[in-house]
């Protein structure tokens, strides 16, 4: 694409699959960069859930790419049109790269409303149907630095027929061509990047066809759609992802949509995925839990004390109540807690005067104890969401830092074992 500045510089590729590098040239003037494997900052309408600028800026470093989605934004189209200066300024955002996705990864989208020419998003006022023309009109008002092309991703139910999957691939390619046509002739979108969307449900040939065809188009990177937690099991996701990635050019980034669990992230990274949406900490926060999994693989005992060494005694407080099988269970239910977190509503935390995670440097852990969080949760106080969101976001983004360090030092296996907390990795 003319004027495309986004550039992926790989410093290391492990076994021809997992990649370590830097995504450079982000933002209108190309001044930002994002280390990969990396995670975007999840928001509701540009706001990290529960957080104001004061509380957001306690996070350090602040993730440099902010994700917004059209489910939140579409209903405000006329407002943004009148405002004219783009969503970043409208939302009073800090100096951040803005990425606009179609759906909210933490809010499942009802099926049955997609047509040949339209997709639907659900905002606070209900369904909004988007044609390519409307979709592109929105992109012109949002003025993100990078956006996901319009896509038909309605293949995630396991009853979806082969015919429907094929149709989704065809439609998504047609949407992409139309989007690119409008994009290239649009002055407002000069310098903005487009990611093509790879569909194909759980059918290998369709996945490969979608990847090959999308790769032929002038896109800056790829979104892997329809593989989100709850739609396919982990083994199948990795099989399909590996096959898709073989078809994609090496020097363009790959963003996995709807996958956030640390174990699943690790497997996706191992398969060659670069980017993830940061919605998982939000889901954990909403169920009143705190991320506590260990990702410290530091050999240096001095550092080990400082880096988030995670759960003090994971065995003692096995949080999910027994080892929950990874991957192939709870396809429907993403609200259930995972063994990467502790449930602070549990009465055992009532008089626990330890921080959420010992050694964690987040605002919440520096200032508050589990007993206080427990109290805020049982009394339904709004501060619970604020403090948990700060901690969970900090913990999750630190995990990505540890992940990059592990890749740099050939220790992805060790990190995986650490994250799984001594449990043997599930073999599906």
């Amino acid at each position, binding site marked *: 694409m003319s004027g495309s500045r986004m550039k992926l510089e790989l410093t290391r590729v492990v076994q021809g699959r997992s990649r370590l590098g830097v995504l450079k040239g982000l933002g209108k003037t190309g001044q930002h960069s994002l280390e990969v494997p990396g995670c975007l900052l999840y928001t509701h309408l540009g706001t990290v859930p529960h957080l*104001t600028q004061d509380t957001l800026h306690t996070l350090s470093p602040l993730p440099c790419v902010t994700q917004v989605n059209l489910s939140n934004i579409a*209903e405000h189209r006329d407002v943004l049109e009148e405002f004219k200066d783009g969503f970043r300024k409208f939302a009073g955002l800090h100096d951040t790269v803005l990425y606009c996705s179609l759906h909210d990864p933490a809010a499942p989208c009802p099926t049955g409303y997609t047509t040949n020419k339209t997709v639907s998003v659900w905002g606070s006022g209900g369904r909004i149907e988007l044609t390519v023309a409307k979709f592109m009109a929105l992109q012109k008002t949002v003025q993100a630095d990078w956006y996901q092309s319009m896509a038909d991703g309605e293949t995630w139910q396991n009853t979806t027929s082969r015919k429907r999957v094929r149709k989704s691939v065809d439609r998504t390619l047609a949407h992409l061509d139309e989007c690119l046509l409008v994009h290239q002739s649009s002055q407002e979108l000069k310098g903005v990047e487009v990611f093509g969307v790879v569909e194909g449900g759980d059918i290998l040939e369709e996945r490969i066809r979608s990847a090959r065809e999308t790769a032929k188009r002038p896109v800056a990177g790829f979104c892997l759609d329809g593989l989100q937690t709850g739609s396919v099991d982990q083994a199948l996701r990795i099989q399909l992802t590996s096959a898709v990635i073989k078809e994609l050019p090496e020097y363009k980034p790959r963003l996995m949509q709807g996958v956030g669990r640390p174990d699943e992230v690790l497997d996706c990274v191992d398969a060659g995925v670069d980017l993830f949406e940061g919605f998982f900490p939000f889901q954990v926060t909403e169920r009143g839990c705190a991320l506590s999994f260990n990702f410290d693989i530091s050999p240096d005992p001095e550092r080990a004390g400082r880096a988030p060494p995670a759960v003090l005694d994971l065995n003692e407080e096995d949080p999910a109540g027994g080892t929950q099988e990874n991957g192939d269970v709870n396809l429907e239910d993403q609200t259930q807690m995972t063994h990467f977190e502790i449930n602070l509503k549990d009465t055992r935390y009532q008089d626990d005067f330890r921080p959420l995670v010992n050694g964690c440097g987040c605002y919440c852990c520096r200032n508050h104890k589990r007993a206080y969080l427990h109290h805020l949760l049982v*009394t339904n106080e709004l501060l619970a969401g604020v403090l948990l969101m700060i901690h969970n976001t900090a913990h999750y983004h630190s995990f990505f830092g540890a992940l990059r360090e592990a890749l740099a030092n050939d220790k992805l296996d060790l990190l995986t074992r650490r994250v799984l907390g001594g449990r043997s990795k599930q073999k599906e």
Partner: protein
Amino acid sequence: MAATIECGTDTNTLVSNMSVKKAVEATSALTLRILAECPVTKARACDLILPHSSVSTPVFMPVGTQGTLKGITVDQLEGLGCHICLGNTYHLGMRPGPDLIEKANGLHGFMNWKRNLLTDSGGFQMVSLVELSEVTEEGVKFRSPYDGKEILLSPEKSISIQNSLGSDIMMQLDDVVSSTVTGPRVEEAMHRSIRWLDRCISANKNPDKQNLFAIIQGGLNADLRKACLDEMTQRNVPGFAIGGLSGGEEKDDFWRMVTLSTDHLPREKPRYLMGVGYAVDLVVCVALGCDMFDCVFPTRTARFGSALVPWGSLQVKHKQYAKDFQPIDSDCQCPTCKRHSRAYLHALFKSDTAAMHHITIHNISYQLTLMNSVRQSIVEGRFPQFIQTFMKRMFPSRDQYPSWAVDALASVNVTLE
């Protein structure tokens, strides 16, 4: 500027030998420095030095009922310049309970708030929240909404909980009667409140660290108020609250009871008007001589999208703000107004709870800034002019000034233009 007066010097050493006379010889853990007194009205500007930090009065105290100020972190509250906030004894006594809070080094430690705290007695919530409560000489009996058990909140129990909470200012348990009730019950409540005050003073385990305030009762009856004032001012408590108002009574009655109280309260002790927080009420009651105020209104109304502004309030959720790209108040220096527009906040209310936090921050900032401006004008000797400007900004025209406010201000020599 008026001479500086200090009171409440440490009489700690005496107290230990004088347990019998403790009720009248209670020490105090505060100092009030009067910096300026308005030459026209009864307003004054003071530094109230409390165990955790100095508070500039007149002061509005935000309410953090359950050990948290609705969605705001303690750092944010500090950043807004808040030096004292409230916790509710009834709520905290129920959950998480005094024992746990004591283990956490008091409410300060539990919520990690480094500045001052004021706790109420718990009596008001019992009367307002709990249906089945019975008041006897012993105390207030009520049924726990959590486990249905009958609980007695006596003056001793209230102080014991507040001692566990470790607040800088504690309130006596008073016999609260709705301000719209008349007749012998009001008199009974007034006398009982005096007796309970003495029991509270005796029960206070930490008079050197925790200040116990008396609460003036007597309903809307001037004679009863006066009798209560006469009795309570004979007790050596570090401060006084004016209670039993802000409960739906006529404003004409309200301000007369306030001004009667301040007329008879000692100059050298702080005066706290309970439950008052509307901007006009604050300005008028400062003119009537009150130093401290609290109210849930600014933070509660914020969560419904109502932002306080010098011309009243602004309903952010109303459609008319959907495309209004100005800040809530362009003169406001709060973090919300510096960064966000009415239009964005309007949109955010549909997507995330952070919208409520933004308005809560703005409203606390509004209240604290208002009181700072009031104080500044008193110090600079131009409070009467401040009142004129404030009223002109708040109301579109002179004929919309509430008559009670006009009368109240006239009583302290301010004739509104």
